[in-house]
C-alpha cells in the first residue's frame, strides 16, 4: 500500500519553561511524523507533556528548539499573525472543556472561525447550517452554550473545528468532561470524520479510548516518546 503524504513532522522538538531557578522540560526532543488521514493518539499521564505537544502541533505555541513542519512549512519561525492564519486554515481544535464562547449562539460559535478567513455572509450561513446538520444540532443553532448539554456543546465544538475545512483535527481529551455514552457519540463523530479522510490527533490519558480508535499511539513520559504502538 502506498503511504500517504506526511502532514505534520516534528524534528527533535523541545519546549522548556523556566520555573524560577529550574528549567522544566515539558517536551524534550520529540521527533515524529503524522501522515494524512491517520488517527493518532498521544497518550500519557498528567505532566507528561501531552498538552504542550498539542499546543505545539496546533501552532498555538512555538518550540524552544527543533522544527515543526506543517505540510512541509516550518511553523517554528513564523510570526504570531502567520501562526494565527495557519491555525485558522489548517487546524481545528476540540477541547476537553468545549471552549465555546458563552455569549454567542451555537450558530455564531460555528461561524466565528470563518470571519477571520474572510468568508462572505451567505457562505458562512450556508456552511454553518451544513455543519450543524452534520452534528445533528440544526434545531439547536440559536441556543446559547449554557442552554446545551455537554454532549451537544462538544458537537458544536466539532462543527466549529470543521468550519474552515482544516487538514487536521486536534482533540484534547474530547470526552474528558462527558459521560461514557455521550463520549461514545462524540468519538463516533471523530471516527466518521477520519473515515472521510480527516487527519485526527487526539490527546488522551484513557488507554481504552486510544486503543479503540487510534491507529497509532505515541506514549509520552517526561516529555519524551516512550513507545509507539500501532493498531489496525
Amino acid at each position, binding site marked *: 500500500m502506498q503511504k500517504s503524504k506526511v502532514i505534520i513532522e516534528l524534528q527533535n522538538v523541545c519546549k522548556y519553561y523556566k520555573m524560577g531557578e529550574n528549567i522544566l522540560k515539558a517536551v524534550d526532543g520529540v521527533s515524529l511524523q503524522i501522515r494524512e488521514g491517520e488517527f493518532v493518539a498521544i497518550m500519557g499521564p498528567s505532566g507528561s507533556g501531552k498538552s504542550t505537544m498539542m*499546543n505545539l502541533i496546533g501552532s*498555538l505555541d512555538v518550540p524552544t528548539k527543533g522544527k515543526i513542519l506543517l505540510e512541509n512549512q516550518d511553523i517554528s519561525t513564523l510570526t504570531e499573525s502567520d501562526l*494565527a492564519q495557519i491555525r485558522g*486554515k489548517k487546524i481545528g481544535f476540540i477541547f476537553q472543556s468545549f*471552549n465555546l*464562547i458563552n455569549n454567542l449562539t451555537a450558530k455564531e460559535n460555528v461561524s466565528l472561525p470563518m470571519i*477571520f478567513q474572510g468568508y462572505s455572509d451567505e457562505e458562512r450561513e450556508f456552511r454553518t447550517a451544513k455543519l450543524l446538520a452534520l452534528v445533528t444540532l440544526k434545531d439547536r443553532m440559536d441556543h446559547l452554550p449554557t442552554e446545551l448539554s455537554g454532549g451537544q456543546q462538544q458537537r458544536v465544538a466539532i462543527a466549529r473545528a470543521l*468550519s474552515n475545512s482544516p487538514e487536521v483535527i486536534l482533540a484534547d481529551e474530547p470526552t474528558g468532561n462527558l459521560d461514557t455514552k455521550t463520549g461514545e457519540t462524540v468519538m463516533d463523530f471523530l471516527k466518521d470524520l477520519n473515515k472521510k479522510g480527516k487527519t485526527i490527533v487526539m490527546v488522551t490519558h484513557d488507554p481504552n479510548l486510544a486503543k479503540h480508535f487510534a491507529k497509532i499511539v505515541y506514549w509520552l513520559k517526561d516529555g519524551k516518546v516512550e513507545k509507539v504502538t500501532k493498531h489496525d
Partner: protein
Amino acid sequence: MIKDFFSLAFKNLKSRGIRSYLTLLGIAIGVMAVVSLISLGNGLQMAVAAQFGVSANQLITVQAGGLTGYGPPGSAVVDPLTKEDADALARLSSVENTVTRNIRSAQVEYNDRIQFRYVGSMPNEKNDLDLVYTSLDVETVSGKKLKPGDMGKVMLGYNFYGKPEEWDGKQITAGKSILINNKKFEVVGIFEKKGSLILDNVVFMPEDDMRHLLEMDDIADLIVVEPKDKDQIDKTKEDIEKLLRNRRNVKEGEENFEVSTPEASLATINSVLNGVQIFIIIVASISIFIGSLGIVNTMTTSVLERKRDIGITKSVGAKNEHIFLQFFIESSLLGLVGGLAGALLGITIGVLGIYGINNALGTQLKPHIDFLLIFFALLGSFIIGGVAGIIPAMKAAKQNPVEALRG
C-alpha cells in the same frame, strides 16, 4: 469583516452588566451639559434679560449720573434730568419721540400690612403711554390697563395678585384700594407675570399723581427715546450724547449721564452668560475626561474577564489585530452609548428648561435642537471611547493563546 466585529461588539455590550454602564456616567454628564446648554440656546439669554428688565425693543434710555449708584435710578443723582431735557431731545432730527419715566420706592399698605415697593410713572399722553406699553409688552390678568387721565388709579405687578401671603393672605384684585405713602389709590388692573423681580413687584401710577405724591417737580429719572430710524440707533445715541453734553456743560469723556441702547444691555448680559457657558464647558470636559478613565477601567477588567474567550478566538484563527479591533470597537461603542444617553438627557433638559422659561416669562420660545452638534457630540463620544480602549485592546491582542486558554 469590520461589520462582523461591530456585531460581535454589540453582543458583548448586551451581555455586559450594569457596572460597565455606570462607568459611562462621566461621558453622559459631559455630553448632557453641552447639549442642554445649546438646546436652551437664546432661552437662557431671554430668561436672564427678563430678570434685568431688558427688553428687545429698539429704544434708548437716558439716565443721569451713570449706573453706578444704588437704589432706583435717579434717586441719588445730584444733577437730575428734567422734562425740558426730554423735550429738547424730542426736537433732534433723528428722534421720533421721548417719554419721561420716574421710578422711586414708596410705602404700600393693604390689609394692614406695609411693604416697600418700586413705583413707576406712566405718561399722560396717549402716544407716550402706548410707547411704554409696547416696550413693556404687558397684558393684564385682572382688570384693565391705565388710560390717559386715570387719576388716583394704579396698575400693579403680578405678585400683588399672585402672592397674597405678602398681604396676610388677602389677594389684591382690580377694584380694590391700596394706600401708597398714605394716599388712597384704586387698583384698575394687574398685569401678567413677567418673571422679573422688578416688573412683577412694581406699582404703575399716572405721572402727575406720582410727581405730586413724591414731590418731584419736573425731574425725569429716565428718558426713553424712540429713534426715528431703528437701524440708525448708534447715530441717534451720538446725537443724544452731543446734545446733553451741551445742555449739561460737560466735556466728552466726563459725562454725568448715561445713554444705553438695548444692544449694550444685552452685551452685558451676554458676557455674564459667556462666563456661565465657559464654566459649564470646563465642568463637561472634566466630566468627560473622568468618564474616559472609567472606560479604560471597565475595558481593562473586561480583558481579564474574557481572557479565555480571547484564547478561544485566537485558537480559531484570530490574528492580534482582529482581537485589537474587536475590543477597540467595543470600547468605541461603549463611549457612543454614554454619548447617546447624555444627548437624550441633554435634549430633555433643554426642552423642559424652555418649557419652564416659557411658563415663567410667558414667552413662546422653542428648544434649539442642533442636530449637527448632537452628531459631533456622538462622534466625539465614539472617538473618546475608542481612544480609552486602545491600551486595554492592545493588552487583549497581546495575550498568549496558550495562557489565555487556561483562563
